[in-house]
């Protein structure tokens, strides 16, 4: 049973929630991480002679309300880059990326946490990065404390926390949003086993509330379970996109059973 199938997609073609048209994005290869002084001053894009790599090229994707998309592909296929584009963090170098609605990306957890501040202060700071209004987060503070299992430790500096505690804190704040578009990038493995089950339940709850979901995962079984459609990326280009079953069959066949 897919989490997103609850809302109907039969109504007369509302505009797609996500629309990518010929999206391309290049990266400079590692040997010269920064631009030359001349390019910098003139604001010119690097010349063709400079080695660049297209992390994404000609990517088309249309997600309608109620759809849940999985993104699969080998390491370095551009899955994470695509997530950053969808989350409005990176702007594509060519093509158009239209994402309508409030996006929340659970890409990296616990980024921006300052060890010197207390858990509570970090919650306030992280929440304002996410754009959660202060009143909302203050009202939700008890719930966050409870969910993250940090009840008494919340007023201690975060540097005294264990790695698991930090991750739980980040997860609890990030998932207190109610986004319309949810982007998940392999963040299921947070905390111990008991917390993993809890976080999974929380994510499924979020998925059922949001209009459109995109998930990046190496776990084919997870993708099969929660998505209706799938996009297979190969070296930054779309190899195949369509209903999950078909795409995953082809993907698994192509990776010769080496994928789990």
């Amino acid at each position, binding site marked *: 049973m897919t989490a997103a199938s609850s809302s109907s997609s039969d109504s007369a073609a509302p505009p797609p929630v996500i629309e990518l048209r010929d999206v391309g994005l290049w990266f400079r290869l590692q040997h010269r991480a920064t631009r030359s*002084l001349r390019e910098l001053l003139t604001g010119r894009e690097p010349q063709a002679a400079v080695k660049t790599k297209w992390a994404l090229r000609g990517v088309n994707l249309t997600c309608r309300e109620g759809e849940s998309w999985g993104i699969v592909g080998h390491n370095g296929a551009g899955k994470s880059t695509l997530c950053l584009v969808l989350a409005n963090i990176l*702007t594509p170098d060519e093509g158009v990326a239209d994402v309508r609605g409030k996006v929340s990306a659970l890409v990296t957890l616990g980024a921006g946490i300052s060890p*010197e501040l207390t858990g509570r202060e970090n919650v306030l700071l992280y929440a*304002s990065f996410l754009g959660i209004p202060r009143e909302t987060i203050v009202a939700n503070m008890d719930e966050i404390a409870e969910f993250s299992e940090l009840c008494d430790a919340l007023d201690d500096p975060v540097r005294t926390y264990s790695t698991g505690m930090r991750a739980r804190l980040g997860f609890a704040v990030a998932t207190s949003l109610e986004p319309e578009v949810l982007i998940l990038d392999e963040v299921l493995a947070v905390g111990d086993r008991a917390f993993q089950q809890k976080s999974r339940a929380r994510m499924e709850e979020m998925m059922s509330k949001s209009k459109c979901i995109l998930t990046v995962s190496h776990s084919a079984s997870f993708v099969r379970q929660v998505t209706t459609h799938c996009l297979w990326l190969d070296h930054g280009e779309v190899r195949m996109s369509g209903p999950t079953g078909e795409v995953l069959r082809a993907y698994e066949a192509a990776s010769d059973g080496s994928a789990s």
Partner: protein
Amino acid sequence: MISSLTNIVARRDLLKELVVSELRRSTAGSKLGWLWWFFDPVLMMLVYWGIVAGLFGRGSEAYAPYPLFLFCALVTWKHFATAVSRALTLLRGNERLIKSVAFPTVVLPLSVVFSGFVYFLAGFAMLLVAVLIWPSPNHSGSYGWVLQIFPLMVFQLAITAGVCMAMSCYGALLQDLRLFVTHVLRVGFYLSPGLYGIDVIERKLSTSVEAPWGDALYAAYMANPFALLISGYRNAVMFGAPVPWEWWLALAAESLLVLWGGYCIYQHHDRRVIKFL
């Protein structure tokens, strides 16, 4: 999330939270906490005073009391220099955050400017008290001119914010810039009337350089907004004198230009800089 003006306004809560967190972070773990906001500029002043007065025996009557004369410049320059050098490593230092949450990243350099401004205000409040206890013999007696510090502070914020916005982009794109700018800032301090007053420069240039060139050089020297700001603060706080109208004009033009330029540079590089981090 583009760092446009409307987005900055929309996310002012984030900016406020960042400044508050920065101030909390500065006091967390230190025994004296926020008292350092007051000790730090005083210690810095004592070091410079010790060097200048002790070694060179400088302490002209016109500058008396010299420690306060020095303090005026040091807190002002420190706000600028600290903010600029922090801005250079800011985007790279927050790479993980920038790549995980969509927010107008321009709030990062702005938060550095504003949190530094709180330290500046702490130092300046101390200066205002010290001036009452230890008044300058050259004070005109009209204390109303002290109100000039408020527009001066606005110009100082605008110039520092503009430079920091540009430097946070360039620092991320060109890492070597950090090492270079450290030296530029040091030269900048000595080119600003920190340890001396502008009268020294005026006298030197008018006596040792030929007629038209002396004035031109002096005008070039006074084009430095920090020459105007520091001398302006001294006029307002120490000497109870008005800041000349042409200084106001120059400061207004320069701060608008720098703020607008820095903002445009940030807008131009905004999202593009992220993939170079």
